[in-house]
């Protein structure tokens, strides 16, 4: 098994291109894990991560002699290598990658509707995401106190350039929790 990676860093985002080459005579199940240390932004279809991808990388089966091309983005600084095999094991020759399996396996945290119908995730993917696009939502600016707005703007700028810190993430989460609690109280 061979894994080749290539990295491009653009506007605060690391783009990782990887090639998994199975030069063995048997199909192999592999896990390609990100080594850059940030969260993995997987390829998406209709807003949902493509099958096989999770927060840490990609898992799937590569047939004997097959070469699989993978690509993802991450806000973390590039590492060398950008990605590596977490493990590889021999797969049954008939075994398929998650993307090729009957796509009825409910993803983690998703409701199982029972019966043999499609999962909510599949229905969403097939019929299209009904949510309005992110760009359609203008963040409110006028009603916020100046200091709060300035701080949020700074966090927003850091997030856009990929320089958001752990402190930023913690503070935004704390702010959200506090605001949700406070909203209940002031609206009563």
């Amino acid at each position, binding site marked *: 098994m061979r894994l080749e990676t290539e990295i491009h860093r653009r506007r605060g985002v690391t783009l990782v291109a990887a090639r998994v080459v199975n030069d063995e005579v048997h199909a192999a199940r592999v896990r390609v894990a990100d080594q850059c240390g940030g969260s993995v932004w997987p390829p998406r279809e209709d807003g949902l991560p493509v099958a096989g991808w999770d927060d840490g990388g990609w898992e799937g089966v590569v047939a004997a002699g097959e070469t699989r091309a993978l690509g993802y983005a991450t806000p973390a600084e590039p590492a060398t290598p950008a990605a590596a095999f977490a493990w590889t094991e021999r797969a049954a020759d008939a075994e398929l990658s998650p993307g090729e399996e009957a796509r009825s396996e409910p993803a983690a945290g*998703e*409701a199982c*509707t029972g*019966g043999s*119908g*499609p999962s*909510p*995730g599949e*229905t*969403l993917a*097939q*019929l*299209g*995401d*009904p*949510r*309005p696009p*992110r760009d*359609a*939502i203008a963040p409110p600016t006028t009603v916020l106190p100046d200091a709060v707005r300035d701080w949020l703007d700074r966090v927003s700028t850091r997030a856009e350039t990929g320089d958001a810190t752990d402190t930023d993430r913690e503070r935004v989460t704390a702010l959200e929790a506090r605001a*949700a609690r406070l909203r209940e109280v002031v*609206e009563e």
Partner: protein
Amino acid sequence: MILAVCGGKGGVGKTTAALNLAAELGAVLVDADLGMADVPAGRGPDLHDVLAGRATAVEAVREQDAVSVLPCGRTLAGAREADPRRVVNALDAVASEYGDVVVDCPAGLRADVGLPLLVADACVLVTTPDRAALADALRARSLAVELDAGLAAVAYNCASDASDDVAAALGAPVVAVPDAACAAAAVETGRPAAALAPATTAADRFATLADHVRRCMQ
């Protein structure tokens, strides 16, 4: 039981039919129109909060005299934060707590219609005699069939008589609902036609529609 009220085209009277059916069936009305909610909402958590994980579905239900309602927020930001997939669990949770649920679906045939249909036991299609509305009702019917939500009945809105052609095309009993002022007033006030104008044809027809639904669920 979870009943989805859908129709494809907008403005055909889905919300009116859903509100009146919920009243007849003693069900909780869930406004699942994530982008353009119609059912009056007061203060407190709504479906946007539920789908964003900020509230549970059961605590977002407003228990009211006429019809208990789980309203939906009206902001784009709220719609953006909502995970449409969570509507499946939310509807299940309300059904386990309250028994019957009527879902007012949005127009169109995207996932915000498909996901309620996926979890629904049956659906009621709403259409007007207008050609465009009928064409959209046929498409909505196909989606409901694909997602295993049996068609219980068709609410033939703004029509004085039921049409055999429509019943044959859609393959379900058709109940004509006259275009009565009380039907529109129902949504304005959040009170069903049966409460506002108990002796009218519209109120009577919604009762018939509810009978069809009950029969379908037996």
